[in-house]
Protein backbone atom coordinates (compact mmCIF):
# COMPACT_ATOMS: atom_id res chain seq x y z
CA UNK A 1 0.00 0.00 0.00
CA UNK A 2 1.25 3.46 -0.92
CA UNK A 3 1.53 5.68 2.12
CA UNK A 4 1.92 9.17 0.72
CA UNK A 5 -1.24 11.10 0.09
CA UNK A 6 -0.22 12.63 -3.23
CA UNK A 7 0.92 9.33 -4.73
CA UNK A 8 -2.09 7.21 -3.92
CA UNK A 9 -4.66 6.22 -6.51
CA UNK A 10 -7.47 3.66 -6.47
CA UNK A 11 -5.21 1.27 -8.38
CA UNK A 12 -2.81 1.12 -5.44
CA UNK A 13 -5.44 0.00 -2.94
CA UNK A 14 -5.92 -3.63 -2.04
CA UNK A 15 -9.36 -5.04 -2.74
CA UNK A 16 -11.91 -3.36 -0.45
CA UNK A 17 -9.14 -1.10 0.96
CA UNK A 18 -7.82 -4.03 2.99
CA UNK A 19 -4.71 -3.18 5.00
CA UNK A 20 -2.04 -5.87 4.95
CA UNK A 21 0.55 -4.36 7.29
CA UNK A 22 -0.19 -3.04 10.80
CA UNK A 23 0.62 0.56 11.74
CA UNK A 24 -0.20 2.12 8.37
CA UNK A 25 -2.05 5.02 10.06
CA UNK A 26 1.38 6.31 11.23
CA UNK A 27 1.88 7.74 7.78
CA UNK A 28 -1.21 9.96 8.09
CA UNK A 29 -0.22 13.50 9.10
CA UNK A 30 -2.91 14.03 11.71
CA UNK A 31 -1.55 17.31 13.12
CA UNK A 32 -2.54 19.51 10.20
CA UNK A 33 -5.60 21.07 11.84
CA UNK A 34 -3.87 22.23 15.01
CA UNK A 35 -4.73 25.81 16.04
CA UNK A 36 -2.28 25.98 18.95
CA UNK A 37 1.13 24.40 19.43
CA UNK A 38 3.06 23.55 22.62
CA UNK A 39 6.26 25.48 23.32
CA UNK A 40 8.77 24.46 25.97
CA UNK A 41 10.97 26.01 28.64
CA UNK A 42 13.11 22.94 29.26
CA UNK A 43 15.01 24.71 32.11
CA UNK A 44 11.98 23.94 34.27
CA UNK A 45 11.44 20.35 33.04
CA UNK A 46 11.99 17.60 35.62
CA UNK A 47 11.49 14.82 33.03
CA UNK A 48 8.55 13.38 34.99
CA UNK A 49 6.76 12.33 31.76
CA UNK A 50 3.28 13.28 33.00
CA UNK A 51 2.64 15.14 29.74
CA UNK A 52 3.33 11.95 27.76
CA UNK A 53 1.00 9.96 30.05
CA UNK A 54 -1.84 12.43 29.60
CA UNK A 55 -1.39 13.05 25.85
CA UNK A 56 -4.50 11.55 24.16
CA UNK A 57 -2.63 11.33 20.87
CA UNK A 58 0.33 9.43 22.32
CA UNK A 59 2.67 11.69 20.41
CA UNK A 60 4.97 12.86 23.24
CA UNK A 61 8.37 11.21 23.64
CA UNK A 62 11.71 12.15 25.22
CA UNK A 63 13.90 14.09 22.81
CA UNK A 64 17.69 13.66 22.46
CA UNK A 65 18.29 15.39 25.80
CA UNK A 66 15.63 13.36 27.59
CA UNK A 67 13.09 16.20 27.73
CA UNK A 68 9.53 15.27 26.80
CA UNK A 69 8.37 16.89 23.58
CA UNK A 70 5.35 16.51 21.26
CA UNK A 71 5.77 15.26 17.70
CA UNK A 72 4.04 18.02 15.70
CA UNK A 73 3.37 15.60 12.81
CA UNK A 74 0.59 14.17 15.02
CA UNK A 75 -0.01 16.80 17.77
CA UNK A 76 -3.49 18.33 17.51
CA UNK A 77 -2.77 21.15 19.93
CA UNK A 78 -5.34 20.16 22.56
CA UNK A 79 -3.22 21.66 25.36
CA UNK A 80 -3.79 18.86 27.87
CA UNK A 81 0.00 18.47 28.31
CA UNK A 82 0.30 22.20 29.16
CA UNK A 83 -2.51 21.95 31.71
CA UNK A 84 -1.11 18.83 33.41
CA UNK A 85 2.54 20.00 33.47
CA UNK A 86 2.83 21.27 37.05
CA UNK A 87 6.38 22.76 36.70
CA UNK A 88 4.79 24.90 33.92
CA UNK A 89 7.27 23.93 31.22
CA UNK A 90 4.70 24.00 28.42
CA UNK A 91 2.96 27.08 27.01
CA UNK A 92 0.44 26.85 24.22
CA UNK A 93 0.84 29.51 21.53
CA UNK A 94 -1.37 30.29 18.52
CA UNK A 95 -0.41 28.66 15.23
CA UNK A 96 0.18 31.39 12.69
CA UNK A 97 -0.18 31.10 8.95
CA UNK A 98 3.22 30.38 7.45
Amino acid at each position, binding site marked *: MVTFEGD*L*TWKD*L*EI*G*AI*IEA*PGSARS*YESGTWRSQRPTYDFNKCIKCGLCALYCPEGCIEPNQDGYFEANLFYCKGCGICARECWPRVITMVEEKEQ
Partner: protein
Amino acid sequence: MTTRVGVEVSIAIADAVKLANPDVIAAYPITPQTHIVEHLAELVADGELDAEYIPVESEHSAMSACLGSSASGARTFTATASQGLALMNEVVYVAAPMRLPIVMAVANRALSSPLSIWCDHSDMMSVRDTGWIQIIAENGQQCVDNIICAFRIGEDNRVLLPVMVHLDGFNLTHVVEPVEFPEQSDVDKFLPPFHYPLPLNPDRPVAMGDFAPPFIFTETKWAHEVAIRNSKAIIIECWNEYARAFGRQYHPVEKHYSDGANRAD
Protein backbone atom coordinates in the same frame (compact mmCIF):
# COMPACT_ATOMS: atom_id res chain seq x y z
CA MET B 1 -30.75 -34.53 -17.64
CA THR B 2 -32.68 -31.87 -15.80
CA THR B 3 -35.74 -32.32 -13.66
CA ARG B 4 -38.86 -30.23 -14.26
CA VAL B 5 -41.06 -30.02 -11.19
CA GLY B 6 -43.93 -27.97 -9.83
CA VAL B 7 -42.60 -26.15 -6.80
CA GLU B 8 -43.27 -23.07 -4.70
CA VAL B 9 -40.79 -20.44 -5.82
CA SER B 10 -39.45 -19.83 -2.30
CA ILE B 11 -38.66 -23.54 -1.96
CA ALA B 12 -37.10 -23.48 -5.43
CA ILE B 13 -34.80 -20.65 -4.35
CA ALA B 14 -33.72 -22.57 -1.26
CA ASP B 15 -33.05 -25.62 -3.42
CA ALA B 16 -31.05 -23.47 -5.85
CA VAL B 17 -28.98 -22.19 -2.91
CA LYS B 18 -28.41 -25.81 -1.90
CA LEU B 19 -27.18 -26.58 -5.43
CA ALA B 20 -24.68 -23.73 -5.02
CA ASN B 21 -23.40 -25.47 -1.86
CA PRO B 22 -22.98 -22.43 0.45
CA ASP B 23 -20.83 -22.54 3.58
CA VAL B 24 -22.80 -20.06 5.69
CA ILE B 25 -26.41 -18.89 5.77
CA ALA B 26 -27.32 -16.15 8.25
CA ALA B 27 -30.90 -14.94 8.07
CA TYR B 28 -33.87 -13.70 10.05
CA PRO B 29 -37.36 -14.72 8.90
CA ILE B 30 -39.72 -12.04 7.62
CA THR B 31 -42.84 -12.22 5.48
CA PRO B 32 -42.80 -12.93 2.53
CA GLN B 33 -39.23 -14.28 2.56
CA THR B 34 -39.98 -16.79 5.35
CA HIS B 35 -40.30 -19.97 3.29
CA ILE B 36 -36.88 -19.47 1.72
CA VAL B 37 -34.99 -19.41 5.01
CA GLU B 38 -37.26 -21.93 6.71
CA HIS B 39 -36.55 -24.44 3.98
CA LEU B 40 -32.82 -23.73 4.13
CA ALA B 41 -32.86 -24.19 7.92
CA GLU B 42 -34.66 -27.48 7.36
CA LEU B 43 -32.12 -28.66 4.77
CA VAL B 44 -29.27 -27.88 7.18
CA ALA B 45 -31.04 -29.46 10.18
CA ASP B 46 -31.82 -32.61 8.16
CA GLY B 47 -28.19 -32.94 7.10
CA GLU B 48 -29.02 -32.48 3.41
CA LEU B 49 -26.96 -29.29 3.20
CA ASP B 50 -23.56 -29.09 4.87
CA ALA B 51 -23.57 -25.42 5.89
CA GLU B 52 -23.57 -23.28 9.01
CA TYR B 53 -27.05 -21.85 9.54
CA ILE B 54 -26.86 -18.86 11.89
CA PRO B 55 -30.29 -18.00 13.34
CA VAL B 56 -29.57 -14.36 14.18
CA GLU B 57 -31.71 -12.00 16.24
CA SER B 58 -32.22 -9.34 13.56
CA GLU B 59 -31.50 -8.53 9.93
CA HIS B 60 -28.79 -6.10 11.05
CA SER B 61 -27.05 -9.08 12.66
CA ALA B 62 -27.78 -11.28 9.65
CA MET B 63 -25.88 -9.00 7.28
CA SER B 64 -23.14 -8.45 9.88
CA ALA B 65 -22.65 -12.21 10.16
CA CYS B 66 -22.57 -12.40 6.37
CA LEU B 67 -19.78 -9.81 6.25
CA GLY B 68 -17.61 -11.87 8.57
CA SER B 69 -18.44 -15.08 6.77
CA SER B 70 -17.64 -13.70 3.32
CA ALA B 71 -14.47 -12.04 4.62
CA SER B 72 -13.23 -15.44 5.75
CA GLY B 73 -13.71 -16.75 2.22
CA ALA B 74 -16.91 -18.70 2.88
CA ARG B 75 -19.71 -18.86 0.31
CA THR B 76 -22.48 -16.85 1.96
CA PHE B 77 -26.23 -16.50 1.48
CA THR B 78 -28.98 -14.55 3.18
CA ALA B 79 -32.50 -13.43 2.35
CA THR B 80 -34.81 -10.70 3.57
CA ALA B 81 -37.67 -8.37 2.65
CA SER B 82 -39.03 -4.89 3.27
CA GLN B 83 -38.51 -3.78 6.90
CA GLY B 84 -35.78 -6.40 7.23
CA LEU B 85 -33.86 -4.86 4.35
CA ALA B 86 -34.42 -1.43 5.89
CA LEU B 87 -33.11 -2.63 9.26
CA MET B 88 -29.95 -4.10 7.71
CA ASN B 89 -29.43 -1.02 5.50
CA GLU B 90 -26.38 0.20 7.39
CA VAL B 91 -24.55 -3.09 6.86
CA VAL B 92 -25.79 -3.46 3.27
CA TYR B 93 -23.79 -0.30 2.55
CA VAL B 94 -20.72 -1.76 4.25
CA ALA B 95 -20.63 -4.97 2.20
CA ALA B 96 -20.19 -3.56 -1.30
CA PRO B 97 -17.14 -1.25 -0.96
CA MET B 98 -15.51 -3.91 1.23
CA ARG B 99 -15.95 -6.04 -1.90
CA LEU B 100 -17.44 -9.01 -0.06
CA PRO B 101 -19.43 -11.39 -2.24
CA ILE B 102 -22.72 -12.24 -0.54
CA VAL B 103 -25.82 -13.45 -2.33
CA MET B 104 -29.09 -12.13 -0.93
CA ALA B 105 -32.59 -12.94 -2.12
CA VAL B 106 -35.05 -10.11 -1.50
CA ALA B 107 -38.76 -10.98 -1.51
CA ASN B 108 -39.95 -7.52 -2.48
CA ARG B 109 -42.54 -6.09 -0.12
CA ALA B 110 -43.80 -2.58 0.58
CA LEU B 111 -42.15 -0.53 3.29
CA SER B 112 -44.41 0.82 6.06
CA SER B 113 -46.50 2.85 6.43
CA PRO B 114 -49.26 1.83 6.14
CA LEU B 115 -48.07 -1.56 7.26
CA SER B 116 -48.28 -3.94 4.34
CA ILE B 117 -47.00 -7.43 3.70
CA TRP B 118 -47.78 -7.19 -0.01
CA CYS B 119 -45.50 -6.60 -2.93
CA ASP B 120 -44.12 -3.34 -4.14
CA HIS B 121 -40.57 -2.32 -4.93
CA SER B 122 -39.97 0.38 -2.32
CA ASP B 123 -37.59 -1.92 -0.43
CA MET B 124 -35.56 -2.50 -3.58
CA MET B 125 -35.45 1.22 -4.34
CA SER B 126 -34.16 1.98 -0.84
CA VAL B 127 -30.97 0.03 -1.57
CA ARG B 128 -30.56 1.17 -5.17
CA ASP B 129 -27.39 3.14 -4.42
CA THR B 130 -25.67 0.66 -2.11
CA GLY B 131 -23.36 -0.52 -4.89
CA TRP B 132 -24.63 -4.10 -4.93
CA ILE B 133 -25.27 -5.86 -8.22
CA GLN B 134 -29.03 -6.34 -8.42
CA ILE B 135 -30.82 -8.92 -10.54
CA ILE B 136 -34.61 -8.76 -10.81
CA ALA B 137 -36.29 -12.10 -11.52
CA GLU B 138 -39.62 -12.40 -13.28
CA ASN B 139 -40.50 -16.02 -12.54
CA GLY B 140 -39.41 -19.07 -10.59
CA GLN B 141 -37.07 -20.30 -13.29
CA GLN B 142 -35.27 -16.96 -13.42
CA CYS B 143 -34.92 -17.07 -9.64
CA VAL B 144 -33.27 -20.50 -9.66
CA ASP B 145 -30.98 -19.68 -12.58
CA ASN B 146 -29.95 -16.30 -11.25
CA ILE B 147 -29.30 -17.48 -7.70
CA ILE B 148 -26.70 -19.84 -9.17
CA CYS B 149 -25.37 -17.13 -11.49
CA ALA B 150 -25.28 -14.62 -8.61
CA PHE B 151 -22.73 -16.71 -6.71
CA ARG B 152 -20.55 -17.06 -9.79
CA ILE B 153 -20.76 -13.36 -10.69
CA GLY B 154 -20.17 -12.00 -7.20
CA GLU B 155 -17.35 -14.39 -6.36
CA ASP B 156 -15.54 -13.88 -9.68
CA ASN B 157 -12.20 -12.33 -8.68
CA ARG B 158 -12.66 -9.74 -11.44
CA VAL B 159 -15.89 -8.62 -9.71
CA LEU B 160 -15.94 -9.37 -5.95
CA LEU B 161 -19.23 -7.66 -5.19
CA PRO B 162 -22.36 -8.69 -3.31
CA VAL B 163 -25.39 -9.58 -5.42
CA MET B 164 -29.11 -9.25 -4.70
CA VAL B 165 -31.71 -11.34 -6.49
CA HIS B 166 -35.11 -9.67 -6.28
CA LEU B 167 -38.42 -11.42 -6.65
CA ASP B 168 -41.93 -10.17 -6.02
CA GLY B 169 -43.26 -11.02 -2.58
CA PHE B 170 -46.26 -13.39 -2.70
CA ASN B 171 -46.78 -12.84 -6.46
CA LEU B 172 -43.71 -15.05 -6.85
CA THR B 173 -42.56 -16.27 -3.45
CA HIS B 174 -45.77 -18.11 -2.65
CA VAL B 175 -46.71 -19.25 -6.16
CA VAL B 176 -46.21 -22.80 -7.40
CA GLU B 177 -44.51 -22.80 -10.79
CA PRO B 178 -42.91 -25.35 -13.09
CA VAL B 179 -39.15 -25.08 -12.60
CA GLU B 180 -36.30 -26.96 -14.25
CA PHE B 181 -33.53 -27.75 -11.78
CA PRO B 182 -30.03 -28.28 -13.13
CA GLU B 183 -28.17 -31.38 -11.99
CA GLN B 184 -25.80 -31.00 -9.04
CA SER B 185 -22.83 -32.24 -11.07
CA ASP B 186 -23.50 -29.62 -13.77
CA VAL B 187 -23.79 -26.83 -11.18
CA ASP B 188 -20.53 -27.99 -9.61
CA LYS B 189 -18.87 -27.62 -13.02
CA PHE B 190 -20.45 -24.22 -13.65
CA LEU B 191 -19.76 -22.75 -10.21
CA PRO B 192 -16.08 -22.90 -9.23
CA PRO B 193 -15.06 -22.84 -5.53
CA PHE B 194 -14.87 -19.38 -3.93
CA HIS B 195 -11.36 -18.04 -3.34
CA TYR B 196 -11.25 -14.60 -1.74
CA PRO B 197 -7.87 -12.97 -2.52
CA LEU B 198 -7.14 -11.72 1.02
CA PRO B 199 -9.37 -13.63 3.44
CA LEU B 200 -9.31 -13.40 7.21
CA ASN B 201 -6.53 -15.77 8.15
CA PRO B 202 -4.61 -15.93 11.46
CA ASP B 203 -1.45 -16.93 9.58
CA ARG B 204 -1.62 -13.84 7.41
CA PRO B 205 -3.50 -11.13 9.34
CA VAL B 206 -5.16 -8.25 7.49
CA ALA B 207 -7.37 -5.37 8.63
CA MET B 208 -10.70 -4.92 6.86
CA GLY B 209 -13.23 -2.09 6.85
CA ASP B 210 -10.87 0.36 8.46
CA PHE B 211 -11.09 4.08 9.02
CA ALA B 212 -10.01 5.89 5.86
CA PRO B 213 -9.07 9.57 5.59
CA PRO B 214 -10.77 11.38 2.68
CA PHE B 215 -8.01 10.77 0.14
CA ILE B 216 -8.35 7.00 0.65
CA PHE B 217 -12.15 7.09 0.98
CA THR B 218 -12.65 8.66 -2.44
CA GLU B 219 -10.17 6.32 -4.12
CA THR B 220 -11.88 3.30 -2.52
CA LYS B 221 -15.26 4.53 -3.75
CA TRP B 222 -13.87 4.99 -7.24
CA ALA B 223 -12.38 1.47 -7.20
CA HIS B 224 -15.87 0.24 -6.28
CA GLU B 225 -17.43 2.28 -9.09
CA VAL B 226 -14.96 0.86 -11.63
CA ALA B 227 -15.69 -2.67 -10.38
CA ILE B 228 -19.43 -2.15 -10.80
CA ARG B 229 -18.98 -0.79 -14.33
CA ASN B 230 -16.61 -3.62 -15.29
CA SER B 231 -18.99 -6.22 -13.87
CA LYS B 232 -21.44 -5.81 -16.75
CA ALA B 233 -19.20 -7.69 -19.18
CA ILE B 234 -18.64 -10.47 -16.65
CA ILE B 235 -22.36 -10.76 -15.90
CA ILE B 236 -23.05 -11.18 -19.62
CA GLU B 237 -20.18 -13.67 -19.90
CA CYS B 238 -21.70 -15.65 -17.00
CA TRP B 239 -25.18 -15.62 -18.57
CA ASN B 240 -23.74 -16.75 -21.93
CA GLU B 241 -21.97 -19.64 -20.24
CA TYR B 242 -25.13 -20.46 -18.34
CA ALA B 243 -27.01 -20.60 -21.63
CA ARG B 244 -24.40 -22.98 -23.07
CA ALA B 245 -24.56 -25.21 -19.98
CA PHE B 246 -28.29 -25.13 -19.24
CA GLY B 247 -30.02 -23.77 -22.35
CA ARG B 248 -31.59 -20.63 -20.89
CA GLN B 249 -30.24 -17.25 -21.99
CA TYR B 250 -30.52 -14.03 -19.99
CA HIS B 251 -29.86 -10.42 -20.98
CA PRO B 252 -29.36 -7.18 -18.99
CA VAL B 253 -32.73 -5.95 -20.26
CA GLU B 254 -35.34 -8.31 -21.67
CA LYS B 255 -37.42 -7.09 -24.59
CA HIS B 256 -41.09 -7.92 -24.87
CA TYR B 257 -42.70 -7.36 -28.27
CA SER B 258 -40.64 -4.22 -28.65
CA ASP B 259 -38.52 -4.97 -31.73
CA GLY B 260 -38.62 -1.99 -34.05
CA ALA B 261 -40.18 0.30 -31.45
CA ASN B 262 -39.07 3.93 -31.43
CA ARG B 263 -39.34 4.20 -27.67
CA ALA B 264 -40.04 1.95 -24.73
CA ASP B 265 -41.27 3.30 -21.39
